[in-house]
């Protein structure tokens, strides 16, 4: 087993945990955390493919990861803002009760 495979396995595990969290948790904040985990699994893949790829001297993978972390920070800020707004409106963060947006 090459070191890349190990990294990828860790990343896949991380993604699976994040997906499971996003799908099964009722609390909106925990769903956000699950999404953050999936993002970080993707970042880990970027770094791993860059480090063991054909051109490790070009800093492309690291650039991607830094961008991704910045966007994720902004996304987390927006997501938490939305959750707070919903909480103020409905006095709950339970996603099963947020079902009024159907046709």
């Amino acid at each position, binding site marked *: 087993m090459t070191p890349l495979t190990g990294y990828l396995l860790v990343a896949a595990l991380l993604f699976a945990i994040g997906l499971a969290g*996003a*799908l099964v948790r009722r609390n909106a904040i925990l769903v956000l955390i699950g999404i953050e985990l999936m993002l970080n699994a993707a970042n880990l893949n970027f770094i791993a493919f860059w480090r063991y790829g054909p051109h490790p001297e070009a800093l492309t993978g690291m650039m991607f990861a830094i961008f991704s972390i910045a966007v994720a920070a902004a996304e987390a800020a927006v997501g938490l803002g939305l959750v707070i707004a919903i909480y103020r409106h409905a006095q709950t963060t339970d*996603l099963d009760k947020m079902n009024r*947006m159907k*046709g």
Partner: protein
Amino acid sequence: MSDCGPAAIVQFLWLIPALPIAASGVIALLKQPKRKAAARLSIGSLSISLILSLAAFAHVLTHWINLAAEKVHPVDALRETVNFTWLQFGTSTVDLGWILDPLSAVMLVMVSFVGLLIFIYSTGYMAHDENYTRFFCFLSLFAGAMLGVVISNSILLLFMCWELVGLTSYLLIGFWYHKPSAAAAAKKAFLTTRVGDIFFLLGIVWLFSSTGTLLFYNHGTGSLEGWALAGLLSQHAGLGLTAAGAIGLLIFAGAAGKSGQLPLHVWLPDAMEGPTPVSALIHAATMVAAGVYLIARVYPLMQAGALTGGTTTALTVVTWVGASTAVFAALIAVAQNDIKRILAYSTVSQLGYMMAGLGLGGVAVGMFHLITHAFFKALLFMGAGSVIHGIHEEQDVRRMGGLKVDMPVTFITYAIGMLALCGFPLVFSGFWSKDGILEAAQVAAATSVAKAPFYMLVFGALLTAFYMTRQVSYVFFGNYHGHKSAHESPSVMTVPLAILAFFAIALGAIGTPAWPWFRAFLEGRSAGFDLHGFAEPGLLALMATSSLVVFIGLGLGWRLYGNNTPKPEEPDALEKSAPWVWGVLRDKFYVDELYGVTVIAFYAWWARVADWLDRRVWGGAVACVTWAFGLWAQLNRFLDTNVVDGSFDKGCEELSNSGGLLARVQSGRVQTYLRILALAVVALIAILVWSARP
């Protein structure tokens, strides 16, 4: 005819009938209380028509004088027509047009003049009628239609106006439609004239199919001109008749219906149910004369094929019908007691004279009597109206009497009209016009076998003098047998009487044998004043005979009735001496009863048969069809509810269910969506891995 086209008066001849018709249309839109406006419109429009008619007459007259001075053959030259195409069917055209010739010019002046006097008289006679405006509306329509008949150069246009005249006659006879007798008389008049009109229409169709034209005169191609007549003469219609003769007889049937000739005379006496001005205008002076005018108009057709001095079958029929009617109606008139009915039978009788005059002596003879009769008969009817008005709507002569004192103007004018009708010698127009007919009958009797018409007409003259004397004795002499006081009519009624009385005398001057101006004018010859006209063989003897006959009639009438007319409840002088004859005459030879048991009974029977057929046969068939359709509808409903609706409803339900199933996916739960997304991604990856396998 001049080369620069017809003169302006000919171009605008159509205005003469159009103005009264337009006035009638406007009056129809007026409200009932606008009495003065209605009377003014009618009288005004007819006055303009009279002025135009006089202008047209003057135009023809100057033309005639010029041509007579040049000694050209002027019969055709005096005729001016304006024709135009109305409709076109394939290659055949339906042409209409109007004509100005001596015949139509004379009639135009007579109709518009007499009509105007009667309009003026009506403003007095109808003054208290609540439907005054309606009366003038119909009267104007009548005047326009009658003038249309006169100027028509197309037999179709003539027929249209002819029917319009019949319609207004119907409307005016039934003017007081709340009286059942008036409504019945109107229907009778309409239906009886319709019998003649059917034949007339057949004649028109035959004429059109044979000659291809509806115009009378059209520069040589009209149906009354040489080429078409020659074509009609060469066709044989069976029974020894040529097509010309057969068409002539068909047209004569129409004329007989309108002019009250035997056997279609029954409607005219009943038509007296209408207001008296209507009787004067329509049923004495103008409309009933339309039949005579029609025969005069198509005279070339009636005469076609006659050798010089000879006669044709059609003209022989006209003569016999006319002469029979003259005697028949005069006999009935002797035993009538209604003042207007006596005059009505007298009209029928005089129309018979005109027809006989046409048959025996030609257009001029019949037309001269038509014109003079129009004046004196309108005078007599209006005089009768004045009497009826003066003694408060009483029409029975037995309840009159001695009115010469109370109604002097009416009496004098009535006496003039009566003497003109009797043919009192030398002074009155009726003498000359009747004498013309008798002279023609005498000439015909000398040349052909049939002498009977002459004697019939002489006998008719005797009867005319007799019944008119009887009537005048009853009305104006003896003692008054009425209950209400009599009074003279207002001047609006007596002045027209005086004018007509003047013409009843003066018109004689244009038709004496010494100066046969009227005849020459109609025939397009020149006429000079020549006392030698009296020197024709037999003429003076004839005049003496007819005078004698008139005097016998007058004397007999005066002897029987004179100053001692019986009281209403006493029998008539004739009734005492010959009750059986009196009964037959009083009941009008039972013609109405004869029609009642033959024609009317047949129609009643046929109506019942038709009713039975309608109820049972056609009604049954209709019911069967209804029932079948009902059954079919039931079947359709069953199919619809159980088959069509069932499957359709099922389809709808399935569609709705599947829609509901899909709608459940959109639950509004974010995580459900996310789950589906994840599953879809997994499936996508699986497919990619599966398809990318080595």
